[in-house]
């Protein structure tokens, strides 16, 4: 069961328990004032015991205290029903509705929110039987006359159950819609998180292992150096760290001090003592700061920088400022991993943002922001849920009105034809109400609100009610024959379901008041005041209940949407974590074969960075990483994109590279691209001065070839992923050709 349905049942139960406590209380306490039952002492005892029990029931039931509660409740109500002979004023009993009927009816009407269908049926039958039995004991003479009205209790139970089912169906439909939206959002979130994590990882590699290996590869380091070992050790830590999925919180300030410690700059840091925040965002900010400080070292030409850390509400702001050379941000473009990609994108990935304010000569300020606020629940979910609830409720009320009109009121009309003057007025009232029902039905079927049309319809209902009252003979007013009294308010309910509780209650009360005032003005009544109170209580409470349900559906929908969003966040986080864990394990395994042993060797001093072989291995590894950074499935030609990235790296180290391509190429899967470009990576990384890289698609084959003045031992022919590699050497030139025929 999902949030909308769960929330509906929970709130519905609460209201049902409230109604079945309050209405019997009002009705039964009224007895003590208005009636003179046969046994006043017993009546007081029964009324007090019943209300005490109802309070206890309302308290215990939601807390699920055992299976005995409902059977005892049914038995208690049966006992009250059987006590009618002593607890009901005979005068009231003879004329119509008494307080016991109110108690029994409301209890039965509230049962659908507490009981299953079978239990509901059993409880209803038991209470009805007890009621009829009690009525027969109380007044053996006229009891058969009133039996049809008493049996109406069963129909009320059915109607209440129908209302419950329809609104619940609406909740289910809303849940399905919301769940569909959630699935779409979750898939998108997982995909985004995977991409973000991959880029995050690549950015980290770029800042650490790649930079170190490149440096060794181009021969900057002449021999074993302590700082290089330490750097390699830190790089290893970063790579290993990425095998774990970060969760929980971290102290941003502590992390920043760690970063500052490793930068050859004097850094002034204005920050709070500690700043706890989600680890993912904290790490992203730290990486951003490290990148910014590295840029200060490389480009600013000053030896000091300033960091400011601030928390403004849900926003964490980190600024890195220097008074160095500055630059023109508009001129920093292209696909290099510079300020743009590794900083701004990194922040955007974790839901933050970064901006770089700089101009030549005026220093640079890098400002990063990260929001800690939980994302708001998706707009519209609450609307969807509320709409579905409301639709269910509207159908329920429509059905209920028709059942009341034709199953309860029509028999009353036909049985009392001689109580009306003129007789035709009553069928006219019935026709008018049927017409109003039809109009509301069409609007509901079309899912259109009634809008202004409700007011003329309401006028029709009031007019019908006045006509109904006026055409009942004086001695039958408010009696059984006067069916439109009370029941006409059901059409007010139907028309004003979505107009807000105050308007709803006001107009329903106005409808009753009109009828009572009308009767008072005309004079004459079939009932005692107590009868009127009970009869009004029984119908009005049901009507107000429906109005309250309509009014609370919107708040229920809102909290259901909030809960759905929260659940979605948790489920998404779970899926994302699982997926990222898998991705990271795979990536770490891929690095484990080549990069990790190299870094480990450099860290321990086992490998000498001055050694030619080590230097070449590092150069090749750095080039492989450059290719990895260039991997991007969204560019039109990923193969050329990756090759160009490798060529660009080689050109930065002073190698002249000629690149040419001819022919049509099929799309190349990622693992094939890896195998095809591997010789180029190795040859370019170890070439002495020049290289020629060519790509040809012809005769169903794709060939990537490289000719370079590289040492032959640095390139090896490895056939994998359906790619066949051959190596030819000619003088100082080595030529590697990788061919793939899998594209057709």
């Amino acid at each position, binding site marked *: 069961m999902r949030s909308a349905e769960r929330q509906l049942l929970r709130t519905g139960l609460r209201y049902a328990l409230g109604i079945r406590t309050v209405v019997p209380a009002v009705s039964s306490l009224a007895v003590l004032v208005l009636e003179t039952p046969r046994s006043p002492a017993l009546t007081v005892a029964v009324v007090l015991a019943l209300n005490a029990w109802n309070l206890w029931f309302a308290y215990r039931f939601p807390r699920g205290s055992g299976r005995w509660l409902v059977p005892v409740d049914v038995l208690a109500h049966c006992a009250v029903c059987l006590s009618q002979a002593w607890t009901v004023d005979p005068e009231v009993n003879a004329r119509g509705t008494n307080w016991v009927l109110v108690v029994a009816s409301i209890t039965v009407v509230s049962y659908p929110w507490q009981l299953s269908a079978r239990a509901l049926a059993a409880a209803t039958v038991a209470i009805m039987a007890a009621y009829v039995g009690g009525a027969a004991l109380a007044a053996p003479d006229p009891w058969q006359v009133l039996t049809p009205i008493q049996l109406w209790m069963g129909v009320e139970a059915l109607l209440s159950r129908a209302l419950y089912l329809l609104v619940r169906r609406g909740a289910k439909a809303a849940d399905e819609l919301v769940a569909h939206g959630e699935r779409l959002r979750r898939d998108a979130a997982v995909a985004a998180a995977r991409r973000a994590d991959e880029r995050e990882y690549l950015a980290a590699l770029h800042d650490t292992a790649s930079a170190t290996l490149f440096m060794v590869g181009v021969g900057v380091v002449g021999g074993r150096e302590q700082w290089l070992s330490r750097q390699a050790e830190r790089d290893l830590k970063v790579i290993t760290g990425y095998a774990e999925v970060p969760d929980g919180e971290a102290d941003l300030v502590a992390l920043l001090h760690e970063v500052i410690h490793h930068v050859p700059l004097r850094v002034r840091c204005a920050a709070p003592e500690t700043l706890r925040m989600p680890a993912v965002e904290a790490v992203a900010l730290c990486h951003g700061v490290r990148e910014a400080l590295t840029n200060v070292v490389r480009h600013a030409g000053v030896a000091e920088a300033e960091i400011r850390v601030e928390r403004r509400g849900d926003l964490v702001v980190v600024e890195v400022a220097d008074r160095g050379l500055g630059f023109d941000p508009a001129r920093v473009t292209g696909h290099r991993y510079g300020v743009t990609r590794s900083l701004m994108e990194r922040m955007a990935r974790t839901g933050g943002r970064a901006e770089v304010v700089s101009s030549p000569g005026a220093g640079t300020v890098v400002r990063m922001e990260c929001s800690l606020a939980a994302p708001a629940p998706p707009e519209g979910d609450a609307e969807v849920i509320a709409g579905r609830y409301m639709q269910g409720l509207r159908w329920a009320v429509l059905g209920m009105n028709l059942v009341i009109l034709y199953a309860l009121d029509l028999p009353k009309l036909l049985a009392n034809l001689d109580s009306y003057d003129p007789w035709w007025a009553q069928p006219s009232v019935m026709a008018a109400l049927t017409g109003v029902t039809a109009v509301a039905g069409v609007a509901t079927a079309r899912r259109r609100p009634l809008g202004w049309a409700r007011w003329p319809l309401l006028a029709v209902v009031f007019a019908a009610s006045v006509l109904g009252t006026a055409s009942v003979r004086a001695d039958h007013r408010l009696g059984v024959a006067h069916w439109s009294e009370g029941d006409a308010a059901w059409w007010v309910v139907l028309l004003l379901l979505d107009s807000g509780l105050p308007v709803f209650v006001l107009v329903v009360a106005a409808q009753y008041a009109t009828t009572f005032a009308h009767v008072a003005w005309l004079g004459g009544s079939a009932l005692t005041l107590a009868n009127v109170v009970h009869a009004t209580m029984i119908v009005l409470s049901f009507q107000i209940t429906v109005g309250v349900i309509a009014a609370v559906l919107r708040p229920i929908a809102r909290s259901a949407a909030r809960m759905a969003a929260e659940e979605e966040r948790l489920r998404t986080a779970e899926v994302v974590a699982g997926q990222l864990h898998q991705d990271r394990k795979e990536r770490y395994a891929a690095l484990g074969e080549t990069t990790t042993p190299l870094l480990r060797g450099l860290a321990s001093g086992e490998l000498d960075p001055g050694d030619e072989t080590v230097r070449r291995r590092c150069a090749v590894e750095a080039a492989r990483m450059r290719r990895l950074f260039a991997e991007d499935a969204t560019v039109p030609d990923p193969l050329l994109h990756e090759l160009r990235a490798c060529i660009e790296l080689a050109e930065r180290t002073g190698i002249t590279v000629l690149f040419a391509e001819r022919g*049509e190429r099929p799309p190349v899967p990622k693992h094939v691209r890896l195998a095809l470009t591997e010789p180029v990576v190795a040859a370019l990384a170890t070439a002495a001065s020049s290289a*020629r890289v060519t790509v040809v698609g012809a005769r169903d084959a794709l*060939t990537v070839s490289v000719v370079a003045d590289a040492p032959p031992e640095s390139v090896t022919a490895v056939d994998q992923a359906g790619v066949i590699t051959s190596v030819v050497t000619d003088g100082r*030139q080595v*030529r590697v050709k990788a061919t793939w025929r899998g594209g057709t």
Partner: protein
Amino acid sequence: MITVAVVDDHPVVVAGIRTWCSLADPPITVVDSGPTVSVAWLEPGASADVVVLDLQLDMGGPAYGDLKRLVDAGRQVVIYTMRDDKETALTCLEIGAFTCLTKAEGEAHLVAAVTAAARNEPYTPPALSGALGTDTRPNRPRLAPREVDVLLEWFHCESKEMVAKELNLSVRTVNSYLARVRVKYANVGRHAPTKAALVARAIQDGLISVDEL
């Protein structure tokens, strides 16, 4: 003595060509040079043996019209262009250019191409070779698989020795394959006096038989 007229709007390119030509053995004389094709039509350029033509002379498209007029006048034109794509090379050959060089190939191939043009012997530099080897147009000449192998390997390696090693051939055979392909291309498409002369010369030299064409 081979004479050449250079049509290129970039002074550095012209200076480069002059240097390469003066260092050639035997030396080649650049009789005139300039940014418009008029240097090829007016003396002393009008009587030069070979015209080196830059395809991109102004903001307009490639100078195919100028090339066509030169070819129709029986001039040997070596295209020397920034454009490194298959279509440009194939179009120039179709019109009747003697050969096409990309500017990246200039240092290694321009002098040889001019010399070959003056002698009316086929010359196929690697970039053009790649274009011929991946030609998929319906009106292309029929090439033997081995000929395509040689074309593509020459494009990949830019070293006849390496091609020979890779394909288990002699350098001589590699050269003759390239020459035959070039002649086959001269024999298809639009008629041009230069193309006819190339074919006639090849048959005369026994490079290719009439049946093979």
